């Protein structure tokens, strides 16, 4: 799960990190007074989950309160396009008005999971404000790394090593050590998957602030992070993906035209891959769950077909413990249910069933009122779906 910058800064502040003074608003008229309170200068920052807001025109400096109001008015409601939003952009619903600080140096500080070491990894760099992945590519030596013991947290000598490695001493070094400790505690105690301060800034007096903040959380841990769950902003998520998650279905919208319904994540990815090998593009990733129950199949159909780009559907189910004939009945019942609801399935549906009782399963499909295209392997299923797509596109 992702959250906004102002929410991440709120959490960091709770863990003792210094962040600039700021206030989030959804009405541009509020900007003027806030800017005045900050001494007449401020920064107006669009709050969307995607990165690259500055380059997209979502972060601007106001040199007086009137300008703050004008900029807030301009940014609020805009469709902000960044390299992470896709061409349609993301609507800005809130802006953060923040005090403008004198930046002397920009650093990077972040914690994430090191999968190979199976521990949290603290990273710091003097190249702040840049994409850390680019720094890692172009100048890997510029990144300081400390593996964190999950049971002990960051140790004082590690924080000292980071501060001195970044080239600081005295009061600034102590402030860096303190924010390092805050960031690691935030990561460990909120079940974050990423805490990133980029840039971490040092002002002309040598004081340290988190100028930008990004936090992602482990979805598996949300059951014990109630405060974090409350920060969820569904406006930032694809509505179909939200609906799918409510039905226990894992769905990710893609750009192609063959809708996929598969049981199991690995098989679902493999099904997308084989569609591409046969010359078409998958419209989605969809895992209906291991058992592929009738309810899950019906919901999955509704979700796949609400994507107008879908011109054909490929169902690939490996019936393991769940018997294939029962799954086939579920598929037929789901199609009947959709027809009865006035939303009949109007695109070709290729079904590949394999596993326990597969003969009976195929029988059920062939006897149904609906004209399924039944395939007997992954390759022929993909081939048949791609052909059905081409016929349909040629015929329309």
């Amino acid at each position, binding site marked *: 799960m992702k959250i906004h910058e102002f929410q991440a800064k709120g959490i960091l502040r709770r863990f003792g990190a210094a962040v600039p003074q700021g206030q989030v608003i959804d009405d541009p008229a509020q900007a003027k007074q806030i800017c005045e309170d900050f001494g007449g200068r401020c920064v107006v920052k669009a709050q969307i989950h995607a990165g690259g807001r500055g380059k997209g025109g979502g972060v601007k400096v106001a040199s007086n309160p009137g300008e703050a109001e004008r900029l807030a008015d301009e940014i609020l409601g805009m469709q902000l396009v960044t390299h*992470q939003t896709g061409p349609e952009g993301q609507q800005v619903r809130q802006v953060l008005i923040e005090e403008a600080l004198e930046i002397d140096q920009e650093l990077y500080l972040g914690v994430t*999971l090191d*999968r*190979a070491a*199976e*521990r*949290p990894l603290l990273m710091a760099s003097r190249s702040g404000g840049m994409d*850390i*992945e680019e720094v*890692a590519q172009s100048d890997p030596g510029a990144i300081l790394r400390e593996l964190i*013991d*999950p*049971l002990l947290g960051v140790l004082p000598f590690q924080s000292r090593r980071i501060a001195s490695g970044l080239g600081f001493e005295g009061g600034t070094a102590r402030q860096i050590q303190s924010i390092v400790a805050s960031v690691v505690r935030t990561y*460990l105690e909120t*079940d974050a*998957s990423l805490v990133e301060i980029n840039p971490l800034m040092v002002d002309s007096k040598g004081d340290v602030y988190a100028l930008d903040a990004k936090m992602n959380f*482990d*979805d*598996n*841990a949300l*059951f*014990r992070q109630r405060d974090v769950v409350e920060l969820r902003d569904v406006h930032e998520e694809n509505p179909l993906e939200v609906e799918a998650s409510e039905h226990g279905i*894992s769905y*990710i919208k*893609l750009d192609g035209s063959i809708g996929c319904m*598969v*049981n*199991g*994540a*690995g*098989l*679902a*990815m*493999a*099904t*997308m*891959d*084989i*569609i*591409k*090998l046969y010359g078409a*593009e*998958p419209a989605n*990733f969809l*895992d209906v769950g*291991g058992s592929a129950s009738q309810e899950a199949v019906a919901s999955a159909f509704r979700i796949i077909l609400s994507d107008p780009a879908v011109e054909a559907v490929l169902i690939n189910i*490996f*019936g*393991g*413990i769940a018997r294939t004939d029962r799954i086939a009945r579920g598929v037929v019942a789901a199609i009947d249910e959709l027809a009865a609801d006035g939303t009949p399935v109007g695109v070709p549906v290729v079904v590949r069933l*394999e*596993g*326990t009782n597969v003969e009976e399963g195929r029988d059920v499909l062939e006897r149904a009122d609906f004209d399924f295209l039944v395939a007997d*392997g*992954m*390759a022929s299923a*993909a081939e048949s779906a791609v052909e059905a797509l081409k016929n349909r596109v040629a015929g329309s």
Partner: protein
Amino acid sequence: MSILVGESTRLIVQGITGREGLFHAMGCRDYGTDVVGGVTPGKGGSTVEGFAVWNSVERARRESGCNATLIFVPPPFAADAIMEAADAGVELIVCITEGIPVQDMVRVKAFLRGRGSRLLGPNCPGLITPDQAKVGIMPGHIHEAGNVGVISRSGTLTYEAVWQLTNEGLGQTTCVGIGGDPVNGTSFIDVLELFAGDESTEAVVLIGEIGGTAEEEAAAWIGEHLDVPVVGFIAGATAPPGRRMGHAGAIVAGGKGTAAEKKAALAAAGVLVVDSPAEMGARVSEALGR
């Protein structure tokens, strides 16, 4: 021959009084696995479907001599269940549970260091040595005893591979699902080492997916140490970057962990990489000259 599980496996099921736990305890027993009972705290002393139930793994181990456990405990309590089994000295811990917080697994891994237990999973289908022991949730009947080892991060995609092998007339020594989470107990290399030491394993199918670097590490190991043919498939060539594809560990992050990188690393180590998931079985046949 086989690895990890076989005729000497004495299995308990943690969470045996739950719906899933009981269903699969019976499934394993029906397959022929020696299921000696299970554990549910607070329900010790009772029996369910003929299985003895204990309050703790320690007690279960003392009274049953179990050497393997299969865990179906819900995510908030699963890490504790794993550590309890390790503390009791159970040799093989197989955790099916999906949805365990990553930081719980980081702590579990720290706890397991220096202890003698091996953890498989979590978020995995388990493992099976055909005709000897099934310790997991896979459909037993699609398997056949034979000479191909299977290792995978996936569930149903593993069944797909096994089904292809069986239809090619190629049986399996042992099929091992290592799970789809970013932090897991047993790696590809751990299993490859065991297959390398198993004389009856004449070929290996390795099924990876996007995310992390486990396949690249496996490739380096295969290049140096493994003499039998390995057929590899990596799921997720069409997955968009930055999105988690169902499995918690299946994500291309920061341009790393792509299918293309993994396939290239495997191919460079001599692995026979197939682009089509429909060709895994046929490629093994070909490699074995059948």
